[in-house]
Structure formats: structure tokens, C-alpha cells
């Protein structure tokens, strides 16, 4: 007897949720465009679950705009009956409200995929992004390079470029490096540019983290 070519399995996966806060289709689509424009690389090809939040928008149009922005809408949740029908008709899945057990877009820490580990130098003009996880770089990060992670960033070498941890709002994310020479460091949107980094931290092994909403640097 031959094995089945396909198998259905139940798996729990983390998925980015796009939550609507308005019933005005135009405002929603404009909002998507603005958010994506802030970091196009971050969103490119990202599957999203659209949380309608009971708003009766033109879901077909919202999904089209999201696709045009590089997102991949896979399903809707918390839709009224009419909107759910339109969603089905335009090829989106419809999930029950109970399927949504988290209110944030971040994956929970226990669901994070393994860290992204890089052994090559990150050169000027290059951008590296660890989606949904930590970024570990075992090489220098050059001036003019940019490293981003939804989790923490660890640089075993000098950090001379820009480092942005907690890109999707994780305030517990941190940046560690063996020599802090960065152009910019940021955690969950709070940033310091080179000019703001005190000389006692420059060129030293350091940790950058948020302490009560203030980005602080500590020597290691």
C-alpha cells in the first residue's frame, strides 16, 4: 500500500494580525499604505490575518490594497455575516473569533522561531532582518549597514552601522555588541543616534535596552 501524498495536520502558527480600527475603507487602505511605507522590507511577502474588529469595510478592496503593498492576506477574523461572505468570495478564509487568542501582532516569546545566525560581515548598504526572532551576527556590522530584528540583536564584533531591535514593538528586546560604534541604535521605535551616544559607551562592549521607556546603554 502506498503512502498518502498529502496529509492534513493541525499546527499552531504565529501570524501577523492586521487589525482595523475604522469602518471607512479609504482610511483603512490609506493606513495600510502608510504603515507599509515605513518599512517595506519588513512587510514584503508577509502573510497577514485581517482582524475586522466587526468593522464592515469593503474587504475585497482592503485585501487588494494589502496585496499591492506586498502583504499576503490569508484570512479574516471577527467579521459580520455580509463581510464574511464577501471575504469568502474573494478567496480569503474566514476564522471564528475564538481563533484569535492574542491581541498583539508580535509572536509570543515561546513561539519564536530559532534565531537567525549570520557569519558574514554585514557590509555598507546591506540590510539584514530577522523576522519574528533574534539576530545573531558573528562578524562586524559596517558603517552604512542596517540590521533589524523583531527580537534582540547580538553582534559578536564591532557594531558600526544601524541596529533596530524589537521592530514590531517588543519592548523587551535588547542590542548587545562587542564594540559600540553605531550610527543609530533603536529598541521598539525608541532610538539614539551616534551623537547621542555618550563617549563612555563608545567603542566598548555594550548593551542597549529600554528601561521605563528610556533607551539606555550599559557597558558590559
Amino acid at each position, binding site marked *: 500500500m502506498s503512502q498518502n501524498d498529502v496529509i492534513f495536520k493541525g499546527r499552531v502558527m504565529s501570524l501577523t494580525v492586521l487589525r482595523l480600527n475604522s469602518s471607512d475603507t479609504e482610511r483603512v487602505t490609506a493606513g495600510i499604505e502608510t504603515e507599509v511605507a515605513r518599512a517595506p522590507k519588513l512587510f514584503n511577502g508577509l502573510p497577514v490575518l485581517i482582524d475586522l474588529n466587526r468593522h464592515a469595510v469593503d474587504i475585497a478592496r482592503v485585501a487588494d490594497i494589502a496585496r499591492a503593498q506586498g502583504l499576503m492576506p490569508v484570512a479574516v477574523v471577527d467579521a459580520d455575516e455580509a463581510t464574511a461572505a464577501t471575504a469568502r468570495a474573494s478567496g480569503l478564509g474566514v476564522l471564528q473569533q475564538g481563533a484569535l487568542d492574542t491581541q498583539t501582532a508580535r509572536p509570543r516569546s515561546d513561539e519564536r522561531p530559532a534565531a537567525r545566525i549570520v557569519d558574514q560581515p554585514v557590509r*555598507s*548598504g546591506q540590510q539584514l532582518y530577522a523576522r519574528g526572532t533574534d539576530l545573531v551576527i558573528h562578524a562586524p556590522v*559596517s558603517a*552604512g549597514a542596517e540590521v533589524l530584528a523583531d527580537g534582540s540583536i547580538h553582534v559578536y564584533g564591532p557594531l558600526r552601522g544601524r541596529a533596530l531591535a524589537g521592530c514590531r514593538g517588543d519592548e523587551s528586546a535588547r542590542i548587545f555588541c562587542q564594540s559600540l560604534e553605531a550610527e543609530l541604535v533603536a529598541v521598539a521605535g525608541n532610538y539614539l543616534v551616534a551623537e547621542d551616544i555618550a563617549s563612555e559607551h563608545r567603542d566598548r562592549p555594550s548593551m542597549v535596552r529600554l528601561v521605563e521607556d528610556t533607551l539606555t546603554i550599559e557597558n558590559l
Partner: protein
Amino acid sequence: MAKIIVVTSGKGGVGKTTTSASFATGLAQAGHKTVVIDFDVGLRNLDLIMGVERRVVFDFINVIAGEATLKQALIKDKRVENLYILAASQTRDKDALTEAGVARVIDELSKDFEYIVCDSPAGIEKGALLAMHFADEALIVTNPEVSSVRDSDRVLGILSSKTARAKSGESVREHLVITRYDANRVARGEMLSVEDVKDILAIPLLGVIPESKDVLNASNQGSPVISLPDVQAAEAYKDMVARFLGEERAHRFLDPSSKGFLNRLFGG
């Protein structure tokens, strides 16, 4: 199968063509059949530095366009055995370069030559990308100053992501060549040191060429620096070629020169 080496830098005016000319000459002098190609279409210089500008009939673009055969376009160096030059076109621009065309020419050259040296134009546009596309190894030419080092870093990033080797999961072997090095100015803190540059770029050092008036004189004469007798820059290029071919040689000309009599007298 030939080894393809790109000489590149990102920034202009740092010494790519000077280095290409001397490097190719050095390889040929060591007995290896070598061709050096000028990829700087529209701003052709290599033929001047090699002193063959009066013998260019057909160029690289003619070969790509099928208007001439490689045999017709290759210029044999009169001074050094085993050395050939493929000049760039001065009347065309870089759009005349195509990936398929370059691939065909390099493929054909590979059958005949041991080393193919590609002299890249400045920048990171089409000409530069195609010069590095088929490279097995790269000489990164850098001046000891921050903007040159930054641009070299950018080029290293492109080498490791956009070349044919990078796309097939292999890597291009990288060599650092520091040119226009002035040990006296380094000692005064006016220039980055060899260590500073190595620290930022994190690739192995192949050679350090001292700043020298002889380099300009050599270009004016149409003779690669490496061919000049009793010249520090020539010695440094010879060391560089020897290291490339696997010989171990210590780096020279890294220390400030002892001050001359007049300098000492006037505290210069």
C-alpha cells in the same frame, strides 16, 4: 580554466587601473598568460597606462557586438611576453555591455589564458557590476581614507551577494590592496593606518602600495609602474603579485621615512 580576477573599489581615482596594469604585467612576468580587460566603457584609460593607445583597432564592445573577433581585438604587449590587453570603447557607453556578451567573451578567453584581469569602472552601476559578475577573486583597491574605505565596504557587500559565484552559493575570494599609502601622514594621524583599514574591511591584506610620484610619471610614459626600476611602488607591486601567487613576503614601506637633512634642519 582561467582564473578571473576583478580589480574594483567603488570610489574613483583610487588606483584601480594603475593596479590592474601592474598586477597583470606582474602575472605575465611570472610566466602566466594573462589578459587585462578595460570595463570602463566610455572612459577608456587602461590602454594609455599600458602604452598601447596607438594600436587600438577593435575593442571589447566590438567583440561583444560581433563586429570583430577576439583575435582582432586583443593587443599583444610589446615589452612583456604572455600579456594581452582588451581595450574599452571610448565612443560607446556602458549600456553596450551585456551580461551574455561579457559571458561569451570571458568564456572564450578562458580557453586561452591563465588569468583574466577585469579592470572595473568606479561606481556600483552596470559596468562595475558586470566587471565583477564572473570573478573568482577580487582585488579591493582602497585609499587610506574614510570615504574610500566606506565605498570598498559597499563593494564587498555586492561581491558577496550579486556575483555569479554568490548566486550559486560560493564566495569570491577577496584581497585588500591599499594604495597611495603615506606612512608619514599616517604617523601624523592624517591618514588611516593599515590596521585601521584592515579592521574595518575585515579581509586579508594582499599589498600596500606607497604614495609615489613615480606612479604619475609611469602613466605619462605609458608604462605600468611595476616595470620601473628602483621604485618603491614597483617593488610593492612585485611583492603583491608574488603574494597572490602564493609566496610569503613581508609588507614593506609601512614605516615613516627618516627625515632628510633639510627637514631636520628646519623641523619640517
